């Protein structure tokens, strides 16, 4: 501990250089954190997808429908505890495509299947009593400035109403949830939807099915699909996680692109920091020789130089990660297709590890050089 002032003074020797090296590190770790949030946004909440929830779609494709009568067959199957139907609505709000998932469903069932969506009970009562009622996620409500009781006209894109082109909804509830939960969705009542749509009565887009034992998910999926095989609408069932994973992969391999960019960034920063450290050691050759003459061991000299580069890396990295942590906390980057820009604890931990690694790697060469320094040579060189 008594060497802390020595390390500190050495860092301050060239304030200009230290400042810019530090800034360099700060910026790269802001970038690291930014890329990690992009990656987790593109993975679309895969980490929190329910393991006990299966999704069933029409085997041909997600845009094909299944009759709602499948519901009876599904719930009658052993191992199924609960299920609901969902239909994708789409729509246009104020001349822009809606920036959230608008889904027609059985709201009470849906909320039971997704306990992570939290709705105050009186709001749930309200929506169950109001045919045109909707429940909307907090992020979407904030984004559009919607309050409970507001009246929302949504223009149809896929589902024309019986009269005109506009569907009218009332905001009866706002759901909230933990940080990772998608708070941008909006659900309305299937019974209202089915009565008021011009065609396609009795058809739904997908079923969400809760099973009693997640370990049997693959088994259950196979049994469900077998049940509907050779019917007019054959099905494809898999875990929610598998669906989200496939959906995320459709955008492209974002993970690989992010990793490639990060490799370039970190390599560059490593070069810059290592170069700075090497220079500062070179400048101090004679000083280091004096320290050794005074009896500082090789190990101690090595430690001093490493401590210098480590403290630069950890301090700079810490600030960088902190900046990004603060700016994603309020969800400033969230948008329609990527509702979840978050910095996960795991990525943060990785960031800290990378800081330490950077400090050690950048300091290693100069530190070893300092350690190997022979007193007589070094003193003569000066």
């Amino acid at each position, binding site marked *: 501990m008594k060497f802390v002032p020595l390390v500190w003074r050495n860092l301050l020797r060239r304030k200009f250089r230290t400042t*810019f*090296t530090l800034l360099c590190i700060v910026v790269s770790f802001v*970038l690291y954190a930014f890329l990690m949030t992009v990656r987790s946004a593109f993975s679309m909440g895969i980490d929190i997808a329910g393991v006990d929830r299966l999704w069933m779609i029409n085997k*041909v494709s*997600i845009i094909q429908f299944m009759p709602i009568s499948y519901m009876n067959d599904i719930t009658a199957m052993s191992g199924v505890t609960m299920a609901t139907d969902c239909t994708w609505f789409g729509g246009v709000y104020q001349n822009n495509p809606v920036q959230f998932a608008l889904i027609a469903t059985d709201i009470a069932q849906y909320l039971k299947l997704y306990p992570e969506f939290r709705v105050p009970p009186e709001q749930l009562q309200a929506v169950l009593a109001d045919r045109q009622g909707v429940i909307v996620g907090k992020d979407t409500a904030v984004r559009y400035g919607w309050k409970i009781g507001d009246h929302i006209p949504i223009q149809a894109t896929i589902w024309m109403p019986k009269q005109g082109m506009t569907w009218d909804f009332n905001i009866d509830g706002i759901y909230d949830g933990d940080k990772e939960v998608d708070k941008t969705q909006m659900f309305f009542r299937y019974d209202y939807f089915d009565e008021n749509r011009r065609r396609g009565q009795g058809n739904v887009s997908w079923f969400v099915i809760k099973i009693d034992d997640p370990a049997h998910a693959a088994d259950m999926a196979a049994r469900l699909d077998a049940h509907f095989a050779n019917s007019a609408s054959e099905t494809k069932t898999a875990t929610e996680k598998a669906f989200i994973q496939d959906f995320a992969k*459709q955008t492209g*391999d974002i993970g690989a692109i992010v990793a490639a960019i990060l490799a370039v960034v970190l390599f560059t920063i490593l070069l810059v920091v290592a170069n700075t450290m090497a220079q500062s050691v070179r400048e101090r050759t004679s000083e280091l020789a004096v320290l050794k003459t005074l009896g500082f061991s090789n190990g101690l000299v090595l430690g001093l130089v490493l401590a210098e580069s480590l403290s630069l890396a950890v301090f700079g990295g810490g600030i960088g990660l902190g900046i990004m942590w603060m700016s994603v906390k309020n969800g400033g980057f969230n948008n329609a297709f990527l509702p979840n820009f978050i910095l996960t604890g795991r990525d943060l931990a990785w960031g800290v590890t990378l800081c330490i690694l950077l400090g050690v790697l950048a300091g290693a060469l100069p530190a070893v050089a300092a350690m190997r320094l022979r007193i007589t040579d070094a003193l003569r060189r000066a």
Partner: protein
Amino acid sequence: MFRWVSQTLAVTVLSIRTVPQRLGSSVVAVVGIAGVVIVFVAVLSISEGFRATMVQAGSPSRALVMRNGADSEMSSGLLGSETDIIKEAPGIQHDGNVPLAAAEMFVIIDLPKISTNSSANVPIRGVELASMTVRPELKIVEGRTLRFGTNEAIVGRAARHQFAGVDLGSQITSGQLTLTIVGVFTAAGSAAESEIWCDSRVLQGAYRRGNSYQAVLVRLDSPASLDTFKNWLTTNPQLNVQVQRESDYYAAQSRVMTGLIRGIGYSIAFLMGIAAVFGAILTMYTAVATRTREIATLRALGFNTTSVLVSVLTESMALAALGGVAGGLLAYAGFNGYETSTMNFQTFSQVAFAFAVTPALLTQGLTYALLMGLVGGLLPAFRAARLPIASALREL
């Protein structure tokens, strides 16, 4: 004036010629800037490639008719009787007595993507004979075209590479749909190359759509006849449709994705650029520091302060230019033409495209590199110019 120029030139040549003595730190600056340019060009080449594919798909001399309110072909729907009326509209080019107008379906099918081995929404277009004549850019490059009234299909060149089981001669089976691929087509590198085409009657049956379509694509008499065409359709009480120029439709389709990629690309490049500028500052600062005595000597000999300033800036920008060129070339070699596919969020379906490192992008990358060199050199340059001669000469 001449003396100033020759002085500046002399000092600049001197500083550039001494770069090899400071190789380590100079390489750091070059590599740093090259890294930024690689990432900048590579990320933007994604959005450039995607945009090119979408823009290529639209022609100003074609118009797309969809149901009013639909935001894409995927969500539109038109009855067979409605499409017959649309084909009567004025402004459509005719081939003899036949209007160049095609009623089409546009749906997706769940097929595995080769690169990720996960299922993807592959677009299938149900076409009629006119679909080919409306799009003269369409060419069969392998096999033959499909025979109408059969379960034959042709596949776009890009779709064939991106998705599994759609090669020439293979058979697709899904639900009640069975298709045999008999040919491969190209369409000037446009989004259509991501699609599978078959007879719309076959699709109507398999997707249980009755006699209905999703859009009508027509070839206009001339780009200017859009208004006539549009007015006739939108004032027709039997129809409730919207009309768009095909090029506008595809430009709008690409907007969300390119906007997103560009936003992310510019953010990354900006942040990396800051780090690279700091790297350049450090390098140039070191260069000035190691040459303190040399610079002071020059000044003592009567060399101008601005000459010294310009020489430092030039060195920094020369290093940056080197980095910019290297980065641009590497990005070009590594990414240009790289084929992939992504989700078009508007239609919920896959679009295959190739990364496009365009000359404009390379110029942007190089400009950005020079900017980083300029900013990075500024502080050290002023420092060099302001060196107090007497004390600098004494410095070690």
